[in-house]
């Protein structure tokens, strides 16, 4: 490792060379000027947008002059190419924005494209100053009985990162293929996608172990260490991970499922290694719930065998109206709603005789459990209008107050006057 540090420090020795200093100044000074001008001209977008291409062209001219004069220019050209490529990434983002939604595009940019560019650029820069092939041979010591060098370690880390980050799109494509071929539902598709990702990551880890030359004994030693760790510090993490896998296989908490959490229907957005993320429609909140919560407590789901939900609204009608007429009107009203499923058919029931009204319940089925509140609202409004049109009264609570008069005393006729 000390050797690596010495190598890296040695790169600064090139700064002793006038030709290297000149190339660096040729690139750095215009870019510094660009930075200052951009801050000043921020309010003039067309001009500000032209500044970078003009600066790159100016650096290119300088490099051309160096080449014409027979001076070293390769380093400046390389730095110019790097900056131009970074600018190209901005243009690529604009292009991709037409093809991809914002969230996946941001993920693609921040997790794959830009990190990959930075790593490749760093490698290319190191290769300019040194030799990557030779640096890769630097030993970083013996681990689990295996002599590791820098190249092996770097390649392993890159492969692991690519596997973890880059396995998403292929897994999604494969899951989509499965959905079309096997006609599975959306929740199953998401579960398949997640399982594929875990599988690819597991294969990646096995490949890395194999690439590093770790033998079975070393892997067993790691497993032994992990088991001790599991017993103490990371028990909960492991418990959540295993719960997540189990729930995926079981299918009760798969992405897309609708669960009843604290009285509200919530849709499962993702099932991660540690926790599930659920979306609550009522206040657009995202709930992060550890996987083992679902594993150890009762869960109410609306999407276990199908996605339909039976909803109900309650209403009261005055005593003077014929219950048969009211029931027929309620069922007809529900059937008229577009978001109420025609089958199973809506059903109105007389629940009982209240103090002010006869109480009815209108039960109907909807396709998406997350729409329950809005559909109930629509049905309630339709019921009010239907009752109004039919002259059916929804009575206010009524209370009959009967006043009982006390008995009158015997009246004595007034005495006559002296006649």
């Amino acid at each position, binding site marked *: 490792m000390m*050797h690596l540090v010495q*190598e890296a420090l*040695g790169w*600064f*020795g*090139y700064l*002793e*060379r*006038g*030709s*290297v200093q*000149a*190339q660096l100044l040729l690139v750095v000074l215009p870019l510094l000027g660009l930075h200052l001008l951009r801050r000043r001209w921020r309010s003039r977008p067309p001009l500000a947008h032209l500044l970078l291409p003009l600066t790159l062209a100016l650096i290119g001219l300088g490099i051309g*002059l*160096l080449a*014409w*004069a*027979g*001076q*070293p*220019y*390769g*380093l400046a050209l*390389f730095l110019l190419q790097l900056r131009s490529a970074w600018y190209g990434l901005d243009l690529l983002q604009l292009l991709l924005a037409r093809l991809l939604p914002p969230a996946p595009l941001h993920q693609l940019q921040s997790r794959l494209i830009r990190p990959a560019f930075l790593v490749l650029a760093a490698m290319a820069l190191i290769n*300019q*100053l*040194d*030799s990557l*092939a*030779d640096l890769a*041979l*630097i*030993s970083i010591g013996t681990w689990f009985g295996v*002599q590791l*060098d820098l190249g092996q370690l770097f390649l392993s880390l890159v492969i692991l990162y690519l596997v973890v980050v880059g396995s998403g799109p292929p897994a999604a494509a494969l899951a989509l293929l499965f959905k079309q071929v096997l006609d599975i539902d959306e929740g199953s598709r998401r579960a398949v996608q997640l399982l594929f990702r875990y599988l690819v990551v597991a294969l990646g880890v096995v490949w890395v172990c194999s690439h590093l030359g770790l033998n079975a004994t070393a892997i067993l030693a790691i497993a032994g260490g992990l088991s001790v760790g599991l017993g103490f510090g990371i028990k909960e993490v492991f418990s959540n991970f295993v719960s997540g896998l189990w729930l995926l296989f079981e299918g009760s908490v798969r992405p897309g499922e609708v669960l009843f959490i604290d009285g509200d229907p919530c849709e499962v957005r993702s099932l991660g290694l540690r926790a599930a993320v659920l979306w609550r429609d009522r206040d657009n909140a995202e709930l992060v719930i550890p996987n083992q919560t679902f594993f150890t407590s009762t869960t109410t789901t609306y999407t276990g065998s199908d996605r339909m939900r039976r909803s109900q609204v309650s209403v009261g009608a005055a005593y003077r109206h014929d219950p048969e007429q009211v029931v027929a009107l309620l069922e007809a009203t529900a059937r008229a709603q577009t978001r109420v499923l025609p089958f199973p058919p809506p059903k109105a029931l007389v629940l009982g005789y209240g103090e002010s009204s006869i109480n009815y319940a209108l039960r109907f089925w909807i396709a998406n459990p997350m729409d329950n509140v809005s559909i109930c609202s629509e049905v309630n409004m339709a019921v009010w209008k239907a009752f109004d049109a039919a002259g059916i009264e929804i009575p206010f609570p009524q209370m009959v107050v009967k006043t009982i008069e006390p008995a009158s005393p015997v009246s004595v006729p007034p005495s006559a006057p002296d006649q």
Partner: protein
Amino acid sequence: MSLPSWGRLRRHFPAALPLAVLLLVIVAWSLRSAVQWLGRDADPATPGLRSQLRATSLEGLEPVSGPQLRGTFYMGIVLDQDQIVNAQTYADLNKRVDSLTQMFRTIYPDVTVQVQLFHSETLIPQLTARVRSGLGPDLLLASGLIAGDLYALGLSESVLMTAQEQQQFNPGALERLRLPDGRLSGVPLLFHPEVICFNRSKIKTSPATLEELLQASSEGLRVGLSVNPIKIYWTAGALGADQSLVRVMQGETLSPELRQRLLGWLSWLQSASLQQRVTIYADQGQVLDDFLNDRLDWISCSSINIPTLRRKLGPRLGVATMPSGPGGEPTPISRERVMVFGRSSSPDQRRIAKAMASFSINPLIQRSMTIGTFSLLPVNRFVPPPVSSSSTLRALVESQRQSNATEPLLDLLRPGDPRLVALDQTLVQLVFGALSPEEATEALIRDLQPQPSLPSGR
């Protein structure tokens, strides 16, 4: 007050456009000249001020007791095609270079030495890219065969050594590096002779003749040879065909006797390849690998690989000279390592490079490098290797003496010479039975003729 428009200017002054163009050309030319003056020329034929100063400074090497030097110095090492490169050999190489640089730093403690590795197959493009970026090495340890080419391609600087400095070398070692103007394309550093490496647990002593070798092979000795022309050339001398090859390359018509010797060499190669325990490889790296993994017992190898082989085999490794044959002594081709001065150095780095070159040919350091590795020979003729105490060094010295006979061939060849490729292909077809010895003889006489477009080896 406003500036006059271009249209008004043209109306009042019709010659404005040509004058503006002329002004631009003058400005551009002045800029170019300024940049050239500040830096140095790419074309050695038209040296700028810096180049002239630098050329002056390359008169002679820096004396070891010179003024104090400081800074980072980049030393490039060119690895041979058959040199084993892995984490272990890389660490060994760094260790060996460290031992040299540590000694150097006892005199110049403020100098930091950085090592860059180059591979012989990709040396030219790698070095071209580095020089173009101003990131080339200050001193390059390369094969003596390629030093002239590097200078001709503008990738290195020449050096003019003083008469006193030149006296330290055998004249032959310097002549191959001499440029037409009398300067040198590099400074000789050391030799890596070609020898025989064998497993002592399988055979006590190496066979002294080719006949004994085939006899030992028939009794169980597993022999590995590379068909690479440079590696197999020692058999040509042992079978008397070396002069035939040189004459063909010089464009002479072979006498019947020389043709017969050439045929005899090729016939021996083919019959050897038919032996059950003689394996002829296309790649020397594979020969070394099989020897390291106990699949071969006797191979020809460059002394540069001795440390790697010794680490694996320990005292079981035997080193000997090539067997002689009916044609006389073998003709192994020894590799000369030279120090070539880079073109990207700052003035201080150039001075450090010269100091390092001067330091490296110092008799004390030459002796130290020789007995420190037992895998190389000094170029300084005032440093006699201690052959009485080391059989390995004795074999190296003997092999180096035998290699003097290959100088006529080396004078005719350059790295990348298409005739080497033709020779390689013919030998491969011969040992795999695609060509008969007679057909191979005709092919060699046809393909090894001098090619007018090729410059001389010197």
